[in-house]
């Protein structure tokens, strides 16, 4: 083992939770080390190639290196790579779609504003929307978010317009606006973590290539932390980002404070000494790291005095419905519109964000988008008819219909995943990673019935809109489903150490100088994709941490 390195702060993870902290601290003169398990990709790696990027192990390592174990309510236990988001500098923000909606004020009062909630372990957030609002605006400026708030009557309060004009959307979006209004709905432009004007340096404006989700952005228009925050942190000279470093445990001193971390890379095992440790490795992996960090004073894992680390896992509840816009069912003028190749449909709706009388009374967000353009993936969807494999001339007919006769339109719905005692992360007793460390066991047990009820409302509304738009072959693919790339709750913030892991300031209740800033810190999922909120909260925690560091 080499001699310990020394930094003021060591951050585990470089994605939405880690990078904001790195930027804030480095710009203030704090010496920061960011340890990232995965490699560092450059724009030259971001090919427009479905096979290389989406069908091989580009974003996460092979299962034999890093298994997760998923235990289900039916008793099944499966080794899988589900639950990994991305292992690379920038984390999941590199391949995200970048739908950046804010939480609504009532999301922060989940336990007290809705009900009844029997069977859920939900708590209120330890602060309200007004606390996070300035940090949402900061994210919008720092990473670059485009949108038009004027069209969303349900938008939470904000102080001004988006820093970037909205992306140019497909002309069919105007038809959605018209039809939506006839149904009493309020479609609005989907805010995107995409810049629509170059920054004059390393980031170009969006080139409308159509490949955001699952791909990296070759012009850095997508606001990944790799494109936005990490370079700013490194430019200070105070931030070092080390890819290929797997943190094995947080090290503790005898006085109850953390002394740094131990990590392994290709050259062996190393120790970093630091005044502060920030854990930002995703809700699942942050919980795993804390549980692996046992010591004499923390025999059940760091921050786990009350057995809360890994509990209250919330993914994001998924609803999906698709419809087919068959050209010959539309007027020649509309056919021309539909054949336009503009990639972004960019319409979202929050008319049913609140859903009185349904479950706990909470719906969420649904948005419309063209189905993902990956042709191999699209074709795979056509190879099944129930349990029968479809091939040959029948598959050819399906391919021709799918690609030539019209366009598939998708409604994607995000809604609350209420925490229950039956969804949690622990260490698996059997499976290990390539370093011999116990893998995370993710138990997805009984879910709260409100999850499905809230999702159903959105799916039904989406299907109604699809029908009104002239879609046929309307098919529901998921109600109350799971979005594994959005994870929360396992190290949640709260004021009561018996029901939470971290303080409102972001540090462990038990350990003053260990912070958690990834999705694990969020007490709930909300009715939107959470990457935006993870970033905002990380900026908030970073400001507080910086103030603490200045005092000392």
């Amino acid at each position, binding site marked *: 083992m080499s001699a310990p390195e020394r930094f003021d702060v060591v951050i585990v993870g470089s994605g939405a939770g880690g990078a904001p902290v790195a930027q804030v601290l480095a710009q203030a003169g704090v010496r920061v080390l960011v340890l990232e398990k995965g490699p560092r990709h450059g724009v030259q*790696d971001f*090919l*427009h*190639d*479905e*096979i*290389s*990027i*989406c*069908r*091989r*192990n*580009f*974003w996460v390592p*092979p*299962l*034999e290196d890093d298994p997760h174990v998923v235990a289900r309510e039916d008793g*099944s*236990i*499966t*080794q*899988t*790579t*589900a*639950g990994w*988001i991305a292992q690379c500098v920038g984390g999941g923000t590199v*391949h995200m779609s970048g739908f950046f909606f804010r939480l609504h004020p009532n999301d922060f009062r989940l336990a007290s504003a809705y009900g009844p909630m029997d069977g859920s372990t939900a708590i209120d957030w330890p602060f309200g929307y007004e606390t996070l609002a300035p940090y949402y605006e900061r994210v919008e400026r720092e990473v670059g978010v485009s949108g038009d708030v004027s069209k969303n009557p349900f938008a939470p309060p904000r102080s001004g317009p988006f820093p970037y004009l909205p992306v140019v959307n497909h002309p069919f979006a105007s038809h959605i606006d018209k039809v939506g209004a006839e149904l009493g709905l309020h479609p609005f432009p989907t805010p995107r973590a995409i810049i629509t004007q170059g920054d004059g340096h390393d980031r170009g404006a969006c*080139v409308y*290539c159509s490949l955001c*989700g*699952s791909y990296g952005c*070759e012009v850095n228009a997508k606001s990944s932390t790799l494109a936005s925050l990490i370079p700013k942190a490194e430019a200070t000279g105070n931030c070092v980002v080390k890819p290929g470093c797997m943190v094995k445990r947080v090290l503790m001193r005898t006085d109850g404070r953390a002394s740094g971390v131990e990590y392994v890379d290709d050259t062996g095992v190393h120790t970093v000494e630091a005044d502060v440790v920030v854990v930002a490795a995703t809700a699942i992996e942050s919980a795993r790291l804390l549980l692996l960090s046992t010591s004499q004073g923390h025999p059940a894992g760091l921050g786990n005095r009350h057995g809360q680390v890994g509990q209250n896992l919330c993914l994001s509840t*998924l609803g*999906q419905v*698709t419809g087919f816009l068959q050209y010959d069912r539309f007027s020649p003028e509309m056919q021309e519109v539909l054949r336009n*190749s503009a990639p972004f449909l960019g319409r979202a709706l929050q008319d049913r964000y609140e859903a009185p009388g349904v479950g706990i009374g909470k719906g969420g967000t649904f948005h419309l988008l063209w*189905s*993902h353009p990956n*042709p*191999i993936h699209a*074709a*795979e*969807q056509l*190879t*099944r008819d129930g*349990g029968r*494999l479809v*091939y*040959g*001339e029948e*598959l*050819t007919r399906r*391919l*021709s219909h799918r*690609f030539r006769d019209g366009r598939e339109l998708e409604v994607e719905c995000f809604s609350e995943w209420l925490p229950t005692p039956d969804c949690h992360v622990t260490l698996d007793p059997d499976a290990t990673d390539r370093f011999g460390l116990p893998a995370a066991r993710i138990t997805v047990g009984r879910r709260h019935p409100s999850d499905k009820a809230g999702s159903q409302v959105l799916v039904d509304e989406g299907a109604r809109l699809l029908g009104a738009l002239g879609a046929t072959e309307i098919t529901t*693919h*998921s109600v109350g*489903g799971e*979005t594994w*790339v959005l994870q929360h709750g396992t190290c949640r913030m709260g004021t009561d150490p018996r029901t939470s892991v971290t303080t409102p300031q972001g540090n462990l209740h038990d350990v003053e100088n260990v912070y958690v800033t990834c999705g694990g810190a969020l007490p709930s999922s909300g009715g939107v994709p959470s990457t935006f909120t993870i970033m905002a909260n990380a900026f908030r925690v970073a400001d507080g941490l910086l103030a603490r560091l200045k005092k000392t």
Partner: protein
Amino acid sequence: MTATPPFANLPAVKRRTFLAAGVGAAALSAGTWAWLRSRGYPVDPPLSVGGGPERPPTAGLPSAPYPAPALATLGPLLDVLLPGDSALGLPSAREAGVLEFLTSASRAPGLTPIRNDILKLARFLDQQAQGLAGVRFGQLSDPAQQARVVAEAAADASPRGRFIPAQALEVTLRLALEGYLGHPFHGGNRDGKVWQALAIPMPMDRSPAHVHGGHE
């Protein structure tokens, strides 16, 4: 751990599931498959093969992952799976270079278990053809007979050791779809004709050929 067969109940997934799959389940490598099988674990559907963001093998790699008799079966099989449509200008699998893609992709590190399954599938089809007409699958002159043999494989979910005909056929189809609809850089979708026939736009700018100086 339960013992669900590796390809059982392959789901139809949509975009969000796909996003997760793209970073997770779908990224199952052949090495993973072998590793799981060796331990008797159930696995997520192996929607992919190969061992990483590797480029198509070009030189210095093991030759001939499939012996000639297997290729004589796999070629006709691929055309049964993806026959094309001349009226649409849609080439058949072989016309699109899918057999070459399959051969090239099967050289990738870690693909051995999947390649072995495809080999077993080829032998299975040959045996079925022998029983039906006394010749190997590739020698069946009647397309209806070829279709019948493939249909029997598609319907046969009974394990023969670790080989299950229906699942091997499905993974072969998935690999074939990569060669049919993937970027021509990888050796299939010859001249992009499948994309042209199906009106699938070419990916702009950052195709592998663009980056690596080859031809679009």
